[in-house]
Structures are given as structure tokens and as C-alpha cells.
């Protein structure tokens, strides 16, 4: 699965995008955030406060219980601040 990071999530994790092999038990956006925390200390620190980690699946905002599949484009980012 391709994962994209934006803003301070990108700078904290250190890469704008990565491709991961999704374990079978990761079924939702929330599962993915929890699982990504185990990948490295940088991931753990960046994703520590899930209240400020937003998820988009195929370019739509989704709640943490939204299901995900390996072909999805998943993006993680802080609350948006444009305009």
C-alpha cells in the first residue's frame, strides 16, 4: 500500500511517501495508524497523538473506522490550515 505524509507529519517521519506490506490484521484507517507507530521511533513520535492525525483514503477525508484495502491511496496529515 502507498502511504503519503504531509506537513509536519512528513518532516517528523522523514519521507513524503512509503510503500508498505499491509499485515492482514490491519483492516481500518485507525488500525493502520496504530500499526505504523510500530515501524520506527520517528513514526511513533509523529503519530503519537492520533487526535491530530487525519486520514484520507483515495483523496477523501475518512474516520478511523473506515475500511482500507491494499490498492487504496492513503494519506496521513495534520488538520488543514489553508485559505
Amino acid at each position, binding site marked *: 500500500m502507498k502511504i503519503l505524509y504531509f506537513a*509536519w507529519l512528513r518532516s517528523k517521519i522523514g519521507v513524503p511517501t512509503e510503500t508498505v506490506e499491509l499485515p492482514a490484521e490491519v483492516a481500518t484507517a485507525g488500525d493502520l495508524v496504530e500499526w505504523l507507530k510500530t515501524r520506527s521511533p520517528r513514526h511513533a513520535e509523529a503519530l503519537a497523538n492520533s487526535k491530530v492525525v487525519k486520514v484520507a483514503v483515495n483523496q*477523501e477525508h475518512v474516520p478511523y473506522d473506515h475500511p482500507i484495502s491494499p490498492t487504496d491511496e492513503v494519506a496521513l*496529515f495534520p488538520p*488543514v*490550515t*489553508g485559505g
Partner: protein
Amino acid sequence: MAIRVQAEDFDVGAEYAAFTAGRTGVGGVAMFVGLVRDIAGGEAVSAMTLEHYPGMTEKQLEAIEMEARRRWPLDDVLVIHRHGRLEPGDRIVMVATASAHRDAAFESCRFLMDWLKTKAPFWKLEATPEGERWVEAKESDDAAAARWAGQGD
């Protein structure tokens, strides 16, 4: 319908002229232009860099425009949002709405900005004397967007 996400500046007068050309049924145009401020949270801001999520940004802005058109009788909508490095005084965003009646133009213009600020994937990085910092989302922006919930449904 026009949604543009671009690094380049835009000319408000030229945009207005193009937006209204040939539209004799329009009774009013409401426009909002957002600018980079030179101070934020009491600190001087020397520059601001806007990051966005190409693809999702356009998709979200189009969805927001569709929602505005569903709620108000609009002749046209224009949204221009810049990305990249900007300096104080630079234009960041422009929203224009045209309608036969002013209330629809005013309200939809405000709605577009309120929703854009909470739904379009843009992030601001400010350069200050203390270093660079990411702008945090404001609760007041969430409250402004939430104000429209349940209205026009």
C-alpha cells in the same frame, strides 16, 4: 466552474472582469481575497510556504463548490488557491461567487471560505525570527465551518 491551484500570483481585476464578462443575469458578485500577514501570534512572519496534496486538493475544492451550488442559486463560482513560498502582502486565495441576488453571493462566498479552511488539504509553514513553524488549525475555523451544518439541507 473554475478551480485553480497554482504557484503564480493572480490579478484580481482581470479575474473579476473574466468572471463577469457576458453575464447580464448576475445581480451581484461577492469576492474574498486572503493575504499573507506579517505577524502571527505576536511574532513577525517573514514568509509563508503553503504545502498541498495535489489531486486531493482539486477534488476537495470541486466538492465544496458543488455543495455551494446545491445550497444557493449561483451563476458561477471561482476559487484560486496558491501554493509555494509567499511573502507578507502576497495574495493566497481568492473566492468569487455570482448570483442574481446579493444574499446568495455573500453567503456562499463565506461558506466556500469556511469549508475550504477546514476541508481542503493545504498546510502553512511560517518563517519567524524563532525559526520555521507549522501553523496549527484553529478551533474558530472549525466553529465557522460547523455553523453551516444542517443549513440548506
